[in-house]
């Protein structure tokens, strides 16, 4: 922390608005020079979900490894979205955490409310849209990875029917389904996606039941936007293919698991912690994807043919390079109306509000 005291005044005066908050935080902290920065994480699921919360926890561990005793990291897992989360976030702030990551959409209002009471604490909220001077937001372009999965699904499916176990019909999930189907139809124009909504992020029992129903209905590939490996394990047992969620889940389904979208929060978390340590943090809106490495693809299943790997890699690399737009028009919705005209793509603002499914999705 000592380098902050040696910052030239002119540099410090450049820090305006939200940055001043962080600087004040840093300023008060210099009095306790040896004290580590306390960083708190709030997870919606158990870290043992092997999915979303697990991926955040890997990011937490990376922060610990990177900064050693300059930080002191704690986490609270399986926190209910709603009033319970507000108490947990407030408790973390009261316990002296200077930087708090709240990692689920439902923590948005609680985070904003607590942030108002603790202007000197820095908050980072994942997958929401409300910002404040001391609340930054961040998210992943998960749909980019889903386009790669869709490509693979289109190439391996024999029945042309893909089952999709989905959580809530919110923009993040809807854009994922749409990107998946659009990519799949490029390699298999008659492919359809059948969606089952579970209205839950983590419910292994319901996830398994949904996968069974989808396979019974003719699906031979299962995609998912829920957090446990349960649907994949059903696919493994029933001879279908599947994709892991948020982390490499191949050990749960060595035959069925073709690849997974791996959420790698480590680079982002390390950057934000460093900014707070340096007193240079300011409220930001970050949306990283394949290009920045916030998402990447898990190693392919050894059984996946070389030809399919090549096509999947090509999609992945083209999206990362910006030469392939997953939502390049023309795109029609389920009713057949053109939503994105030929030669155009969708703006980030419209993408974040997406509430329509593309033609070919059955739900």
């Amino acid at each position, binding site marked *: 922390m000592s380098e902050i005291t040696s910052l030239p005044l002119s540099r410090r005066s450049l820090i305006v608005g939200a940055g001043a908050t962080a600087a004040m935080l840093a300023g008060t902290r210099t009095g306790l020079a040896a004290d580590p920065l306390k960083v*708190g994480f709030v997870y919606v699921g*158990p870290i*043992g979900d092997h999915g979303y919360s697990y991926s955040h926890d890997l990011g937490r561990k990376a922060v610990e490894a990177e900064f050693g005793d300059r930080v002191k990291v*704690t*986490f*609270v*897992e*399986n*926190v*209910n*979205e*709603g*009033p*319970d989360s*507000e*108490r*947990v976030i*407030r*408790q*973390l702030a*009261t*316990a002296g955490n200077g930087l708090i990551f709240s990692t689920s*959409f*439902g923590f948005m*209002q609680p985070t904003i409310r607590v942030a108002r*009471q603790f202007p000197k604490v820095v908050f980072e909220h994942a997958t929401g*849209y409300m910002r404040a001077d001391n609340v930054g937001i961040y998210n992943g372009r998960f749909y980019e990875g889903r386009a790669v999965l869709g490509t693979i699904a289109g190439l391996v499916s024999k029945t042309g029917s893909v089952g999709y176990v989905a959580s*809530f*019909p*919110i*923009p993040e999930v809807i854009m994922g389904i749409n990107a998946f189907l659009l990519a799949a139809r490029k390699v298999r124009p008659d492919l359809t996606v059948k969606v089952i909504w579970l*209205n839950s992020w983590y419910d292994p029992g319901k996830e398994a039941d949904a996968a069974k129903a989808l396979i019974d209905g003719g699906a031979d590939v299962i995609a998912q936007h829920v957090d446990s490996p349960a649907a994949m394990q059903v696919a493994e047992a029933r001879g279908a293919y599947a994709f892991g969620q948020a982390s490499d889940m191949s050990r749960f389904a060595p035959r069925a698991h073709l690849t997974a979208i791996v959420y790698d929060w480590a680079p982002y978390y390390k950057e934000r912690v460093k900014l707070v340590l340096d007193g240079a943090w300011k409220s930001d809106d970050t949306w990283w994807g394949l290009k920045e490495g916030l998402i990447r693809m898990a190693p392919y299943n050894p059984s996946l043919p070389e030809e399919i790997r090549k096509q999947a890699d090509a999609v992945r690399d083209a999206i990362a390079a910006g030469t392939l737009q997953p939502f390049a028009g023309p795109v029609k919705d389920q009713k057949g109306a053109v939503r994105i005209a030929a030669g155009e793509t969708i703006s980030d603002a419209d993408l*974040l*509000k*997406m*509430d329509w499914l593309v033609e070919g999705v059955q739900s």
Partner: protein
Amino acid sequence: MRLELVRRPESPWFGIVAPLLAVALTVASGFVLFLALGLDPVETLYQFMLAPLTTFQSLTELGVKGAPLALIATGLAIGFRANVWNIGAEGQLIIGAIAAGGVALAFWNEAGWWILPLMLAASVAGGMAWAAIPAFLKTRFGVNEILTSLMLTYVASLILQMLVFGPWKDPDGFNYPQTRLFSEAALLPVLIEGTRLHAGALVALLAALAAWFVMARTVTGFEIAVVGDAPQAARFAGFSTRRTVWLSFLVGGGAAGLAGAFEAAGPIGQLVPVLTPGYGFTAIIVAFLGRLSPPGIVAAAALMALTYIGGENAQITAGLPQAATGVFQGMLLFYLLATDGLLRFRIRLTGARSPRAAQP
């Protein structure tokens, strides 16, 4: 050989000794558990059981978490006394919250002292209406109320989701499934500035007091108890089972509905797809933990709230894994019920073989 439970002579000490013994056993087991996890057991126990009681803020949080549990359990206990099994308080809570939320949204951004009372009245009516369905089915067709009230919970949850994903969705909310934030006139007043303790906590206490008075001092309370304990005697005395079923469901549903309004207009401030972390179900445990008596229920609700908040605390300050907090909470409940049961009953092994036991 078989086991028999033999009732011991009643003693007024049981009520005090049982919980103390349970806490002592929980502390001892927790000590071993935390030691085995490689944590400092004294520190962890302190963070779990005492730290939440040491700061003003966390004491008020006990009220925030405990109030809905106490309110719902108080309502349910009246029915449970009469052997009427309303398992669907969770659904009645949701319908109550929907009714209150509907009023809040209809008068969104309007001022008026009457908005909040109207919301609360609507929530009570909503909860009662939802509870009236199993009551009607039971009294008219003899349908088992456990099944109907439970299944209606899932219907209520789907209605809520239909509304927040559809017509009631916040138009400025990026299509996320939630309503607008309620405006000022539709929010519960906070009792103590700077905390989240809202008027609902006060109402929960008053409701417990009222329930105690009704059960202990009125003929209606006596009727309910007799219908539950001795249905034949109740019939002989001319007490109406039908009336008791209706009363149980309406009181239980109304209280749960009101708790729903308190959650929506209190700490949440809007309607969201998942409104409660299962308060309606936890309240059933609270009702029995409090032995169906209102003072006991208030104490049991506070204890449940303490284990939740202590569990969060232990995670934050002592690094206790979340699963271990669940184990600890489970141990406390187990010991409370076990000590209570074993103090009241003695287990006797009898030599007589029952015909059932003789079968392989």
